[in-house]
Every structure is written in C-alpha cells, then in structure tokens.
C-alpha cells in the first residue's frame, strides 16, 4: 500500500512542472480575466478588487462603443475575404498541385514560405513595397505602371481601398497554410475511389462533386473554423502594414492592445471576453452546421 502510494506520487511528479506553468499562465489568467473585466483596474499598482469594482460597466461601454463594433466589422470583412478568396484559392492550388507531377515539390516549398515568417516581417515588407511617398519610391505603383496595369496605381496603405487591400494581403499571407492542409486532405482520398468512378463512367466534375468534396468536408470545415479564429485574432501584420489606416483597418485585437498599452486593463479584458465568446459561438455553429450537412448527404459514418 505504502509503495503504491509512493509510486503514484512519483508518477504524478512527472507532470507537476508542466501543470504549474499551465495553471499559472493558462488556467489562472482564464478565470482572472473574468474578474478583471468587472473592474477598472489600470495596470499600475496593486490590484484591489473591491476598490476597482465597476460591475458590468465595461460591457455596457463596449456595447455602445462605435469604434469597437467598427473594428468587429473590419475583422469580419477581412475574415469574409479569407474564407472565400483565400480558401478557394488554396483549394484550387492544392487541386492543381495534385494534377501536375512536375515541380509539385517546388510549389509546395514556395507556397509555405509566407506562413513560416512572422506577421511583422510580412507586414513591414509589404508596407515598404507599397509605401507611397513623394520621393518616388513607391515600388508597387512603379511595377503596376510598368506592367500596363496603370489603372491599379493607388495609395496602397492609406487610400480609399485600404480595407480591401489589407484583406488581400492577409489572404496572401495565409493561403499557404490552408493549401498544405487541403493538400494533405486531397492526398488522403484513396485512388481506387476515383478509378471505380471512372469505370462507372463518371467524368472529372462528377467525381469531384461526388467523391472529393464530400470526403473533404471535415477538412474544409476545420480550415474554415481555423480561418475564422485566426483572422479575427490577427493584428500584428496589420499593425506593421498600415497601423489601422486611421480606423479603416483597425481590428478588435488592435483595440484591445491599445487599451492595454494605455493602462485600461479591465476594459481590455472585457473586450477579450466579448470577442472570445463570439468566436466560440461561431466555431460551434460551424461544426454543428457541417455535421448536419454531412448527415443529410449521408457522408457521416455514424
């Protein structure tokens, strides 16, 4: 009895270091942010719950804060482009790579360079590429003019179309990641299915529609959910690219970041919780809907 207790204690001690770090930096902050969100704690000095308690005031402020909802709209706008344009592009690229045999390794390596690099590097690099200055060093406009696409020349980082441009840059940075996941999904579809479909007289579109798409539904759902989560919580690239472009491309995390930097920790926590709750709701809905669709078409095994 004694030895088994000692045994268990030794076994448990293996996870203690991980558990301590995890509790300190995940579990505790998780609950702590609920407490902080009810206060006007200003990050300087000791935290005194009773003195700084303001009830639901932060949440009321958020509900009537136009800047916040504007940032949610901006985030949703970029997410819309990431869901549609980025993911469809990634899917088409993955399909194409499975069709061409030559150079497929090269494409795979190149497409994944961008997700490997940091958001700051990508944002700053494109900022310098797009920077419109009187010195005549706006490289992208120069390139666009030289390729006979002069109608595209514009102020890329603060002009009228800056929100769309930011969304497209976000897609450009993110497609490689979706591409790799789609490619893994496509390669996991057994070749025999396509062969037997061909023998049964199915054309390419039919076998895509009846085999590839249904089998990839779980992967597609996963990519969509992760795209939503990733895009709504992205901000470093936009900060580096155009610093919010005077409100046009301010995203929720940028507001939270700015509030924290100015000491409004309580408000920043409340905003984080609002965003987190919305994201959880959206991703659960997506999984639920996808399951329903799969059940309806009889793809889901259970």
């Amino acid at each position, binding site marked *: 009895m004694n030895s088994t207790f000692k045994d268990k204690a030794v076994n448990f001690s293996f996870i203690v270091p991980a558990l301590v770090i995890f509790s300190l930096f995940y579990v505790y902050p998780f609950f702590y942010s609920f407490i902080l969100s009810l206060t006007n704690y200003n990050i300087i000095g000791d935290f005194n719950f009773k003195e700084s308690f303001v009830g639901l005031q932060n949440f009321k402020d958020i509900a009537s804060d136009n800047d916040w909802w504007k940032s949610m709209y901006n985030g949703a706008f970029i997410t819309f482009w990431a869901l549609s344009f980025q993911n469809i592009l990634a899917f*088409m690229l993955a399909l194409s790579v499975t069709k061409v045999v030559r150079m497929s390794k090269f494409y795979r390596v190149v497409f994944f360079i961008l997700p490997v690099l940091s958001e700051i590097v990508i944002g700053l690099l494109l900022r310098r590429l797009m920077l419109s200055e009187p010195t005549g060093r706006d490289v992208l406009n120069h390139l666009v003019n030289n390729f006979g696409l002069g109608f595209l020349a514009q102020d890329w980082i603060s002009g009228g179309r800056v929100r769309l441009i930011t969304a497209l840059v976000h897609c450009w940075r993110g497609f490689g990641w979706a591409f790799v996941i789609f490619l893994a999904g496509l390669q996991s579809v057994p070749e025999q299915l396509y062969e037997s479909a061909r023998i049964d007289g199915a054309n390419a579109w039919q076998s895509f529609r009846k085999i590839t798409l249904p089998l990839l539904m779980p992967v597609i759902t996963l990519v969509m959910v992760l795209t939503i989560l990733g895009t709504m919580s992205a901000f470093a690239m936009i900060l580096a690219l155009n610093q919010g472009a005077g409100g046009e491309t301010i995203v929720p*995390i940028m507001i939270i970041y700015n509030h*924290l930097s100015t000491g409004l920790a309580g408000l920043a926590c409340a905003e984080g919780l609002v965003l*987190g709750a919305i994201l959880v709701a959206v991703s659960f809905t997506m999984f639920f809907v996808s399951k329903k669709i799969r059940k309806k078409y009889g793809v889901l095994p259970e």
Partner: protein
Amino acid sequence: MAYYQSKKIVILIVLHIFLLSIALSCIFPFFWMINASFKTDTEFNNDYGLKPASSLRLDNYKEVIFTGGFWRYFLNSVIYTFTSVFLIILLSSLAAYSFSRLQFPGKNIIFYMFLAAMMIPLPAGFVPVYALLQQLGLLNRTGYVLAMSNMGLSISIYLLKTFFDQLPRDLEDAAKIDGCNKLQIWWNVAIPLVTPVLAVVIIFNALNVWNEFVLASIIFIEDKYMPLQAALLQYSGEQISQHTLVMAALTVTALPIILLYIRMQKQFVKGITAGAMVG
C-alpha cells in the same frame, strides 16, 4: 488520341501558369528585399531596388547590426527561443511520458484539461497574462520566457503523448529489469525513441517564440531586452525613408528562418500544421 493528348498538355500548361504566377508572387518580395538590402539609397531611388545589385555591399548590414543594435535583438531572440523551447521540451516530454505510461489518480481529467486549452480560443489572452506578470513583478526576461513556455505546452504534450502511445514497451521493460528508475527510463529510453516527433515539436515552438510579437512588445519597453519582432517595428518607425536599411533589418530577421525552412521543409510543414491536425 492526339486530341486527348493535346488537350491534356494544354490543361497542364494552364495549371503551371496558374501555379507559377502565385509562386512568383510569394518569392518576388523576398528577392526584392535581399536585393535592395545591398544597395545605396541613391541606387534604390533610381531603380526602385528592382535591378540586380552590382555588388554584395554590406554597409547596410553593418549599420543595422552595429549602429541599429540588431546584434543585441538577434541575440535576445535566440536566447528567448532557446530557453523557452528547452523548457517546453523538458516539461512536455516529462508530462507526456507520464500521461502515456504511468498511473496516478486524476490522470485523464488533467490530460483533458490540457486538451481543452487547445480548443478554447483566448484571442486576448495576453491581457490577463500581462496583468499577472505585472503583479508577480515578472515583467522581465524570466516572466516572458515562462509565459512563452506555456504557449505551446498543450500541443507539445498532446503530440508527444500520442507518439509514446504507439511505441512498444519492450525496451522500457528491459530497462526496468536492468534496474533503471523511471527518470532514467524517461531519459535513456523514451526520449531517444521520440526524436522524430521531437523535431516537429521543437520547430513548432521555436517558430512560435521567434515570431512572437504581442507580449514581447508590451513587456520589453527597454531596447536592450527587445527581441527581433518588436525591434523591427520600432526600427521601421524610426527609419521612415531609409528603405535599404529596413530591408537589411528584415533580411537579418527573415533569412535565417527561410534557409532553415528550405533545409528542414518537412518538419516545418508538420510543425505548423500540427496545431490544425489536432482538431
């Protein structure tokens, strides 16, 4: 027959044009970046950094690394990355081994707690973590590294545990008969067996820490503690019109990662998609 053959070739050409044009858009900015980093300002003003650099002029690099202080930022990034990844590997391999092989009460509940942490999005998790560090008096390197070592902990434990589960126990049993204690078995038998997945875990976490910006930028106000990402943003804000200098600074940050990635492409892809594949 010839008709189908030529149709196939046309399709292939169209696909290659599509793929190549996207690939070009991915590579071009980096060639431009490296090329421009060798140029003088006058050269850059004349040709927009588009013509190949006439010589490998390293003045911009000298300026950025020594005057700009990037040697220090680089060193900081290396230190933060190494210590965080070391901590993550140590903690997660110990925990994963225990979760997979050893028995203790509450094992499953604790494991599911780690799993839940991967599923629940905390988009602004840096706010309470910052407040916590502030109250603990840990707004310094130690606090940053500790917070960073939590970032990839759950996924690392999950990846290592599933790998341990697939391994046969024969070697460990043999080691036990030879008189090894559990810690010795973990170090001498289990760790060498998981090296393939260890590489993936290391790259996943190293990239995470190397590319981390948010927490670093609010914790390290002083220049001397800043890692590369935070320093880059500050430097770009200071050098508004010195494009070639910023290109050199960007190259210093990005090129090591690009070269490493090209050498270890498989592990990088696995590492970055590891998080996605868990879900």
